[in-house]
């Protein structure tokens, strides 16, 4: 699904190298998790994959379903099936959540040469999906993320994901700010989307989320590199002992 080879990234404005040779191979149908200390480059990786400005790829390549992603505009990557649930979802005053969702869904369909959804069809689908995430009609009407609580913003990210049905889903700390019940809701939302043709990359600090969304592979990222990969037990090890042992081991 997603192949990341030797990815080196620096800041465009500064001489600061953030990713220092990331290698990841994410197969279709799998759930991969990335854990790692603050500032290790996890969010940067997610931004570079989705095409945010301000970063310069100095080496390496990224392929999504065989296509070179790094040459694409962010909207092209989205249409090709990439989705990022933001660690910090952005507030957009003046743009209704519903308008935003419909514009996004139809923009992607158009880019893929598919027919746009009618207002009626769209409404039906949104209402249904919003309900399972306990997002009420009021939240759909309000401007995108404006005045949403932390947890509401995260649920809204998952709603977008559910509507857009991407193939490659990156979740950056979607569990942060969620209460126990919301965590379950969100996890159920994610699990409902799991299928053989879809891949997840879940960035998290806590084992707790991985109890709900069971990963196939867990990676540890430190100082811009994947320093260790393993099964779900790796997340437990981090939970119990922190990163010191792992860092020492590879040093």
């Amino acid at each position, binding site marked *: 699904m997603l192949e990341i080879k030797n990815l080196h990234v620096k800041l465009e404005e500064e001489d600061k190298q953030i990713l220092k040779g990331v290698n990841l191979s994410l197969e279709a149908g799998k759930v991969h998790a990335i854990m790692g200390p603050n500032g290790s480059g996890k969010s940067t990786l997610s931004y570079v994959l989705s095409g945010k400005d301000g970063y310069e790829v100095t080496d390496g390549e990224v392929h999504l379903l065989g296509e070179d992603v790094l040459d694409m505009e962010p*909207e092209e990557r989205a249409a090709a099936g990439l989705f990022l649930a933001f660690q910090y979802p952005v507030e*957009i005053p*003046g*743009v209704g959540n519903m308008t935003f969702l419909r514009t996004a869904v139809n923009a992607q369909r158009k880019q893929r040469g598919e027919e746009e959804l009618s207002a009626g069809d769209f409404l039906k689908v949104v209402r249904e999906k919003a309900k399972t995430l306990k997002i009420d009609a009021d939240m759909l009407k309000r401007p995108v993320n404006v005045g949403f609580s932390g947890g509401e913003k995260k649920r809204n990210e998952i709603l977008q994901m559910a509507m857009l049905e991407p193939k490659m889903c990156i979740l950056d700390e979607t569990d942060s700010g969620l209460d126990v019940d919301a965590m379950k809701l969100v996890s159920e939302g994610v699990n409902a989307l799991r299928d053989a043709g879809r891949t997840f990359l879940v960035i998290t600090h806590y084992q707790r989320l991985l109890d709900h969304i069971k990963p196939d592979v867990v990676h540890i990222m430190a100082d811009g590199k994947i320093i260790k990969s393993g099964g779900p037990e790796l997340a437990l090890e981090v939970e119990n002992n922190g990163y010191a042992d792992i860092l020492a081991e590879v040093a």
Partner: protein
Amino acid sequence: MALPDVKQELTAARLDANAVPESGAWLAAARADAVARVQSMGLPTKRDEYWKYTDPTTLTSAQAPEAAVFEASDEAPLYDTIDRLRVVFVDGVFDAEASDDLTLEGVTIERLSDAGRADIHWAKDLYGVLETKGQIPVERPLAALNTALATDGLLIHVTGTPTKPISMIYRHKDASSDAVLHHVVKVEAGASVTILENGPAAARFNKCMEIDVADTGAFHHIRAQGRDHERRAVTHMFGRLGTESVFKSFTLTANGVLTRNEVVLELTGDDAQAHVAGAALGDGAFHHDDTVFITHDAVNCESRQVFKKVLRNGAVGVFQGKILVQPDAQKTDGYQISQSLLLDDDSQFLAKPELEIYADDVACSHGSTSGAIDEDALFYLRSRGVPKGRAEDLLVLSFLAEAIDEIEDADIAADILGRLEAWLERRRG
């Protein structure tokens, strides 16, 4: 105080260029008074404080600079789907053929050029009267000039609630036209009216509207200043608001090399409400000036000024807005916001927001900002698959939303929004 020579010459030349129209006694008196006031004030020059950000030279010159007529075939006329009474002026001249019959229940509509021939008329108490009041504390000589020279206009007496809006359509067909129109609107107690205006009007357009809203009356105004790139316009609205009355005005301006819209309101009755809003879109040779002066002279009144400008390719936006709260105007709720969205480094926004408060129990706030497109929001939209151009448009619309929201009628708001979206789409090509 004697006027400087330059001003004297300028004023004389302008007054010489147009004859004061022949009128009956009441109007002739108002015109003569206005001529005298123009002569004593003198027309503005760019050295005047009140014209610091906008050069009035082309508005005061004896001849109107030419403005190519712009044929817009790629857009349906505004308000097309709205049932309205249409009154058409072509280059400032009333077009009877194109206009509807001026009869509508709840209102009497007369033309200034007809009613002005009478010896006496109800409009006598308003024509040039609110304009004269509005000359204090800041002089607005171009409005007095209008009172002196206006060739036509509508005298609208609202006694009930007409079932449809009165729609003034200003067509521009002559590249050197110089139009001067003056409307008077009198809204009686409990009555309510909606006035629509649209169109480029003329190569140069000087328009004045005086509005008297009696107790519990309501005046709604939605205006779109049309697409001709080279047209110039200076407009004034003078409003007087009675107890529990409502005054709401919204203006969309897209294109136009020069626009100066002045709004001067006085809230004279308790619990009155005045909202003035504007959305301006400028690309290239575009200079747009909103100058607003709202005086609170009664208790528990609310006023809002919401002005948003989207500027690119060297376009210039100006906002001069003032809230004046007189000593007795307790419990005033005054709000003023002026913002610009600069789509590049070449464009500029000049703002002079002012509050002058003499009462102690008031809540007034004002703010003015200038900013670029929010890059994080843009990326967020694009990451969801919305192409860059469309994403920028959405952010422009979201920036303008607070101003558009001031339009109460949903159908008219949708129409204005459609026009805005079309403008944005054309820019994207």
